[in-house]
């Protein structure tokens, strides 16, 4: 091969001549980033990301479009290039209007994938939702109750009505899992042997413990309190956080830990040296901020004056605190509210909160304030305590001074200033001072230092303290904060400790780049004006009238409420977030889209523009891949560039909606888009995005046999893509039609007909009933009164079993299916079988392609794309068809033929070739048995003269005949569904006499619309052909089968499809139907008639009568396993992605049914079935390996009279 030498980033390299720099670099393991390049398309060099520097060039050159030249010196990653690429990305992103990640997630300190879990809840996937939450937060039931919900403040739904009740949904799904005992802990890795000590069992410590334990480390938790939980236990009252919930979530974590030591304080009971001695390699301080802050006013130390946190702690410990009739609580935070409410619940009738600002400035959450008001708590705003007066050492009254609000202070709130002379007194029995907490850190200068506020100083990104192997997280390093912030810190500490223990550099994760539409205030609410208002589901609560007791106040959502609320989510984050090239590059190049901020286009998105495709031009970067793939590859040009300059936008022409254009919904534009501007619509209540699992299988859309990649989450199919992005072609049938599987209602048990209704029964009972019914018919009226109908979607293995049951167990050849085309006698006679004689790949190299009545674009779009590619590569197309399609415009000769003229046309061409001796005599004499007879037959036949065919131009026929006879690698495309035996004979003869069969690269491709029609014909699903398309009267074939099957094979030919259907209720007494929606409510009456015992094996149960006598729930696409045979004869494997809802695969049902019928199915697993197939089916003798092509290349063709 011709190789070029060049220098890539200072190293010598070689690559093939004719490739671009981009390809050459890739061949040498250097990936050059690009957004506009697509291997399926000609280079365009629009995005300017792939610029590289080439020595001697005037400026940077686009690698995607610059051909490699001998001796080039190429640099791909100089600082200049990185700067250029970063600027290009930043410019693109400056006009990229969208949210990569929903703002709720960005607002969540723990970074929980909120949109993801709400989407999963909406789809009823509760355990997946919980697992997703637990990836970021191991305390979902606790946080679901006490979180201050930073997320909801940023919820874009605020612009429509009110925010989604995000936290209530989290609580719902975690409670649901608790109640239904769903396992929630993620998989624990094998033990690492490394030990971590966690000091403090509050939210930060517990979180760190959970994630470190999952990594396989050995964890010990030390806590000074009697029980774990920290402030969650000792600071939050039980009516907000019930103790069973708290204990359950703590227990789920401690079960993963090696040791838990309560009542054990650092510095008192153990120290760093003792830990070190015990072999702990890392220590995490998560000791919280539990010390009270003092007001420094007179009377603060009186009996009857409590600190907020001390008061709550006593209650939590179960101790009694004696309160008088009147209680004043000082402070405006949640602790103040909690203390006030607790006082009320303890029976105190008069509780007043004294706060120095107004209600609007209170840091406590609005819900909490509201609850306190409901409970009768009074508020005294704009008042600051000055002194607690006492009487005999007992609190008598609280002296306060009135305040007014002045200038905003550092926190942005208006600073209260005293109003001199406004002092007043209120009579109280107790005062609770809830004005905040501080860190009570042990002095350990050798381990860490304390900052100005008394918190442990750490690197905020890695949570490392000053000493090696010492970390700190939670309130002790930040001062008092929230549970969710502690969880976030605990997770971050766990990540760092994990790195530290692995000996890796301790650094934070690279934060993925996220583009944002901006803050809530920056967004024009008009943008959301089209969204229907749905009221937020209110949290059900205990009767507010009940004042005493500590039962949980908020009751949580029901499943129904959760569904409604989850449905309110706007799914702001981009569907492409997990596989967006633009975002990945943004992360890799550390971009900031605000650097070149300016006008950003905000164009409305028409969600109803297309049934499957969602375009969001706000995210378009104008790489033009969609435009180019639609015109260059598909040949439609449904999308184009509109306007100029900065106003350029990709739109369908003339302002049409996409579905009003000639778009054929092939979805290739989606596969081309490097960002989220063109997306598939997801056939689910909420689309995600989620990180998806994927598996490759075969498209059941038609017989072309394309590989498709199924992308799924749990048991839902989310999208379909070509396997190995950017290489393959697919069509509507592959990319979109398969998604409908999500919407199908499935039966989960066998059903039998009782009193005109279908009743669920066990498998065994159903098999018994089915076999009794069928055997009764067989025994009374003989095997020929039974029939089997199959759908073309059965796998080879299923099909083989079906006909084996029919022939061996039921002694009938009545085998067929309404959508199963019978074996074409024309092809069978001349080619030795009804199958293709060449492969798709031959189209590319064909110098002539003859398309015979195929309706390529409608029926076989992917074949149409191959033909189109072949034409642009220099092939010539001759199209003979009844109607003109778009591809005919590319044809060199396009001829209209119809049913009446088609045979005449073929005969005329044959006649011309024979008359003018344009036949391949050498081939004929060597390879054609009975060639003399064939030529004699052709000469004898009154072949049509060219000029005798009405409406057909004889000159065109001559041209076609000459082109075909002279072509060196011609391929004929035929529609196997519609071609008649006479046409097939003519086409075969044409190929044979010109020597265009039986060798590589030339021949006939018989296309099939049924996805496994070819395979089922080969498997013997035919009334008159045995497996391997062996005629029923072939004694050799029959003998072989009888030997393998140990059973007689009935000799009487079976009925045709029409005869079977005709005979139902008449001569047909028993019917076994296996199919994929072969029977629908619309045609059920044809099959289920009185007097016929009917068994239906199908994925979808009928919803209304008439019903079959027995129904077996079958497996559908993506639940099945086995193989298909594509139109080109290639074995294509199906992969099981989902479990069939009823638990059994079709072949398992068939084997069991056969056994029940008394014929022991010897082949009872997939391997043995395929082994038997390769013995019984001659052309499949090489087995059913994935990708194997079974072709008929007989040394000698049986042409005529043999």
């Amino acid at each position: 091969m011709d190789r070029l030498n060049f220098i890539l980033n200072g190293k010598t390299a070689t690559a093939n001549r004719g490739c671009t720099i981009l390809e050459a670099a890739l061949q040498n393991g250097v990936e050059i980033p690009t957004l506009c390049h697509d291997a399926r398309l000609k280079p365009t060099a629009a995005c300017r990301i792939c610029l590289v520097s080439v020595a001697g060039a005037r400026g940077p050159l686009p690698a995607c479009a610059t051909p490699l030249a001998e001796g080039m010196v190429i640099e791909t990653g100089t600082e200049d290039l990185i700067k250029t690429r970063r600027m290009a990305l930043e410019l693109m992103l400056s006009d990229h209007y969208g949210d990569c990640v929903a703002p709720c997630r960005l607002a969540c300190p723990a970074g929980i994938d909120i949109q993801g879990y709400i989407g999963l809840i909406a789809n009823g996937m509760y355990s997946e939702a919980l697992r997703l939450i637990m990836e970021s937060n191991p305390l979902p039931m606790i946080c679901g109750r006490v979180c201050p919900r930073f997320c909801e403040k940023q919820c874009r739904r605020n612009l429509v009505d009110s925010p989604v009740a995000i936290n209530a949904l989290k609580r719902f799904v975690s409670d649901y899992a608790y109640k239904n005992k769903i396992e929630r802990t993620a998989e624990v890795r094998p033990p690492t042997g490394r030990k971590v000590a966690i000091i403090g069992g509050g939210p930060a410590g517990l979180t760190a413990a959970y994630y470190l334990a999952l990594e396989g480390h050995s964890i010990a938790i030390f806590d000074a309190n009697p029980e774990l939980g920290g402030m969650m236990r000792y600071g939050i009252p039980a009516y907000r956080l019930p103790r069973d919930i708290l204990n359950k979530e703590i227990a789920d974590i401690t079960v993963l830990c090696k040791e838990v030591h309560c009542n054990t304080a650092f510095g008192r009971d153990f120290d760093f040296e003792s830990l070190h001695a015990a072999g702990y390699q890392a220590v995490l301080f998560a000791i919280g901020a539990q010390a009270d802050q003092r007001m420094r006013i007179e009377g603060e130390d009186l009996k009857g004056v409590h600190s907020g946190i001390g008061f709550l702690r006593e209650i939590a410990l179960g101790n009694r605190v004696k309160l008088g009739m009147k209680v004043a609580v000082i402070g405006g935070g949640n602790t103040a509210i909690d203390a006030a409410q607790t006082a009320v619940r303890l029976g105190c009738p008069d509780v007043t909160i004294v706060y120095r600002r107004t209600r609007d400035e209170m840091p406590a959450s609005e819900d909490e304030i509201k609850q306190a008001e409901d409970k009768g708590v009074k508020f005294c705003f704009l008042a600051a305590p000055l002194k607690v007066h006492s009487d005999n050492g007992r609190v008598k009254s609280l002296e306060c001074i009135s305040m007014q609000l002045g200038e905003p202070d550092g926190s942005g709130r208006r600073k209260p200033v005293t109003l001199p002379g406004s002092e007043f007194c209120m009579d109280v029995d107790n005062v609770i001072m809830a004005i905040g907490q501080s860190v009570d850190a042990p002095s350990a200068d050798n381990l860490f230092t304390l900052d100005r506020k008394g918190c442990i100083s750490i690197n905020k990104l890695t949570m490392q303290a000053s000493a090696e192997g010492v970390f700190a997280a939670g309130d002790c390093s930040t001062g008092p904060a929230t549970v969710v912030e502690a969880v976030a810190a605990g997770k971050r500490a766990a990540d760092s400790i994990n790195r530290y223990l692995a000996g890796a550099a301790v650094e934070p994760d690279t934060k993925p780049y996220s583009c944002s539409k901006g803050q809530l205030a920056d967004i024009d609410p008009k943008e959301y004006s089209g969204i229907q208002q749905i009221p937020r589901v209110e949290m059900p609560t205990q009767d507010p009238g009940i004042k005493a007791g500590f039962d949980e106040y908020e009751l949580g959502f029901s499943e129904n409420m959760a569904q409604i609320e989850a449905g309110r989510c706007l799914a702001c984050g981009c569907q492409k977030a997990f596989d967006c090239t633009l975002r990945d590059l943004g992360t890799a190049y550390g971009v900031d889209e605000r650097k070149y901020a300016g006008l950003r286009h905000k164009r409305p998105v028409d969600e109803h523009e297309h049934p499957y495709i969602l375009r969001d031009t706000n995210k378009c970067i104008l790489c033009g891949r969609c435009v180019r793939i639609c015109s260059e590859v598909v040949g439609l040009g449904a999308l184009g560039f509109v306007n100029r300059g900065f106003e350029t936008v990709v739109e369908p022409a003339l302002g049409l909606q996409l579905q009003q254009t000639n778009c054929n919904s092939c979805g290739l534009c989606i596969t081309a888009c490097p960002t989220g501007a063109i997306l598939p619509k997801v056939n689910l209540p909420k689309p995600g995005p989620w990180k998806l699992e994927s598996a490759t299988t075969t498209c059941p859309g038609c017989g072309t046999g394309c590989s498709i990649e199924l992308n799924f989450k749990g048991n839902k199919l989310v999208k379909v893509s070509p396997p190995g992005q950017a290489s393959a072609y697919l069509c509507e049938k592959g990319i979109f039609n398969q998604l409908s599987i999500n919407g199908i209602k499935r039966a989960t048990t066998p059903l039998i007909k009782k009193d005109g209704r279908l009743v669920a029964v066990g498998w065994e009972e159903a098999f018994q009933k089915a076999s009794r019914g069928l055997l009764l018919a067989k025994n009374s009226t003989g095997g020929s009164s039974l029939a089997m109908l199959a759908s073309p979607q059965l796998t080879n293995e299923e099909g083989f079993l079906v006909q084996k049951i029919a022939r061996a167990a039921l002694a009938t050849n009545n085998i067929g299916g309404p959508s199963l085309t019978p074996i074409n006698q024309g092809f069978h006679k001349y080619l030795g079988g009804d199958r293709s004689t060449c492969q798709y790949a031959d189209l590319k190299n064909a110098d002539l392609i003859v398309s015979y009545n195929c309706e390529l674009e409608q029926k076989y779009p992917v074949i149409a794309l191959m033909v189109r590619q072949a034409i642009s590569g220099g092939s010539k197309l001759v199209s003979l068809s009844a109607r003109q399609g778009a591809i005919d415009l590319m044809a060199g000769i396009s001829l209209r033929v119809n049913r009446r003229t088609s045979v005449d046309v073929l005969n005329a061409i044959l006649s011309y070739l024979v008359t003018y001796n344009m036949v391949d005599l050498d081939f004929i004499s060597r390879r054609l048995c009975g060639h003399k007879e064939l030529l004699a037959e052709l000469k004898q036949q009154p072949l049509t003269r060219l000029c005798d065919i009405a409406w057909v131009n004889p000159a065109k026929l001559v041209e076609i005949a000459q082109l075909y006879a002279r072509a060196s690698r011609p391929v004929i495309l035929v529609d196997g569904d519609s071609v008649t035996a006479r046409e097939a004979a003519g086409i075969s003869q044409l190929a044979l006499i010109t020597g265009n069969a039986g060798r590589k690269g030339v021949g006939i491709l018989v296309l099939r619309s049924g996805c496994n029609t070819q395979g089922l014909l080969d498997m013997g699903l035919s009334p008159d052909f045995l497996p391997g398309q062996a005629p029923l009267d072939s004694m050799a074939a029959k003998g072989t089968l009888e030997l393998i099957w140990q059973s007689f094979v009935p000799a009487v030919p079976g009925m045709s499809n029409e005869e079977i259907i005709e005979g139902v209720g008449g001569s047909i007494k028993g019917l076994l139907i296996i199919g994929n929606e072969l029977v629908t409510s619309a045609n059920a009456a044809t099959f289920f008639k009185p007097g016929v015992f009917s068994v239906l094996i199908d994925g979808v149960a009928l919803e209304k009568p008439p019903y079959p006598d027995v129904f077996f729930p079958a497996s559908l696409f993506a639940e099945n396993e086995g193989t298909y045979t594509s139109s080109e004869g290639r074995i294509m494997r199906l992969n099981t992605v989902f479990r069939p809802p009823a638990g059994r695969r079709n072949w398992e049902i068939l084997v069991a049914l056969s056994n029940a019928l008394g014929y022991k199915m010897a082949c009872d697993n997939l391997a043995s079935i395929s082994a038997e197939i390769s013995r019984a089916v001659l052309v499949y003798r090489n087995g059913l390996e994935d990708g194997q092509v079974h072709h008929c290349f007989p040394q000698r063709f049986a042409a005529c009279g043999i």
Partner: protein
Amino acid sequence: MAQNVTDSWVIKVGLASCGIAAGGSKVFGAFKTHLKNVKAPVELKPTGCIGMCYREALVEVSSQDGTWLYGQVNTERVERIVQEHLLGGCPVEEWLIPADEIRSFMSRQKRIVLRNCGVINPESIADYLDSGGYMALDKALDRLSPLEVIDEISKSGLRGRGGAGFPTGTKWLTTRKAIGHPKYVICNADEGDPGAFMDRSVLESDPHSVLEGMLIAGYAMGASQGIIYVRAEYPLAIQRLELALQQARDRGFIGREVMGRNFDFEIYIRQGAGAFVCGEETALIMSIEGKRGMPRLRPPYPSQSGLWGRPTSINNVETFANVPWIISNGADAYAAHGTVTSKGTKVFALAGSIKRGGLIEVPMGISLGEIVNEIGGGTKSGTDFKAVQLGGPSGGVIPAEMAATPVDYESISRTGAIVGSGGMIVMDEKACMVDVAKFFLNFTQDESCGKCTFCRIGSRRMLEILEKITRGEGSEAELDTLEELAQEVKKSSLCGLGQTAPNPVLTTLKYFRDEYMQHIKLQKCPAKKCQALIQYLIVAEKCPGCGLCLKYCPVNAITGSKKQPHSIDPAKCIRCGLCSSVCRKDAVMVI
């Protein structure tokens, strides 16, 4: 024919677009009417652009006694000219353009491309033939081999007059040698620079010279088809081209067996829909092919793979118009003009704040100052010129201090500007350089095809920064961003449009950075041009209280009672400047 006239008159009326716009057609009609009574043999004919567009409508009267050029002729003046000059024999001195004005306008020019402009009747092939037209084609077909033609062009040193200045002979030779058939010759007449009208004038004044140039090019390169890509906004040029094509076809100069020789050549006209980017050669080809006009990466160059993937040579109107002259007069005659590397002459459209604006052709190497001050007569206001914008939106600004710069490809590019296609806009102190950069950038970013990131968004962001600066909201940091963007857009854009779009910004920043700084730091526009930074004031001492400004103010920002000094409310004022332009006492001041 003209030299044979012994005792008759010839009257030529300049009827290119410039003349027609100034009322030339009406003048022509008036002459027709008035000449009915004149007994003497008078030939009245239209002609093209005479060059002194500032004096349109121009009428040239000639007899064996001499030639007189009347300027600013209108229908009312026609009768007196006929009466006094033609009948009375006395030229109307007061309307004649003074001889020294003609001399200073013309003496430094060398008219090769414009040799027939304003001389012949563009609608008459006979006129063209009389002036030696199609002789060059005849000579080439008769005496020169195609390679000899190319050799002659190469020797002449002719470089592409469209702007890039690529040697024409080299381009032709590459196309000649390229494998592929058929080959195409394309004439790029998609002149889109604001302020440029060279190609239009040539097409309107001397269409045959372009056709002849294309025919010679076709012969030299072995091409059989020529396409003139002309913008639809030039209806007169298209009309005269079509007429010329018909005439040439009728004479056997175009079509099968041109001039009876073994050479077939057909020329078609393709109208462009007015996208500036279609002047870029690859976009132009896309447009001819019926696709969206978007440039593609070169190589391959059109010479190798152009229209429909075939070898294609694209040359500008002016380049083609040079060709017949070079073939007729020889390469050496052409190369005698100009400098070592930039030979021959160049046509410029002199516009802006210039006393004598029009179409000129000068030998390469003449200094900018000579063009502005001597040919152009200096600025309109009479003050020194401040700068010259050369090369349209792709070009740059050259300050007056560099007036000595010789106009040749190399010297001009060293300044940061480009020779370009020939638009030359002269600016005086009233021009704000930030505003000028903004104007040109606004044009290019609007005309960007939208394909590549840097041009589409980068130039837009640059414009937004310039807008902020002219509003007084810019910062020094943004000025750095502007410069950074400009460098990167220039370096990394796909085609010439993007690569040159930052030139006006870069050159103004280079030569007039202080003006930017005044906008940013002092929120002042020294040229008093940027609306947001100026304020209109009425000087009480000068204001007679006539109320005219009050009447004209569209937003009622002016108050004042009769005979009392008026005043402007700056809050209401939208700075349209109407008050200042209507004030007869010069009482409105801009600060």
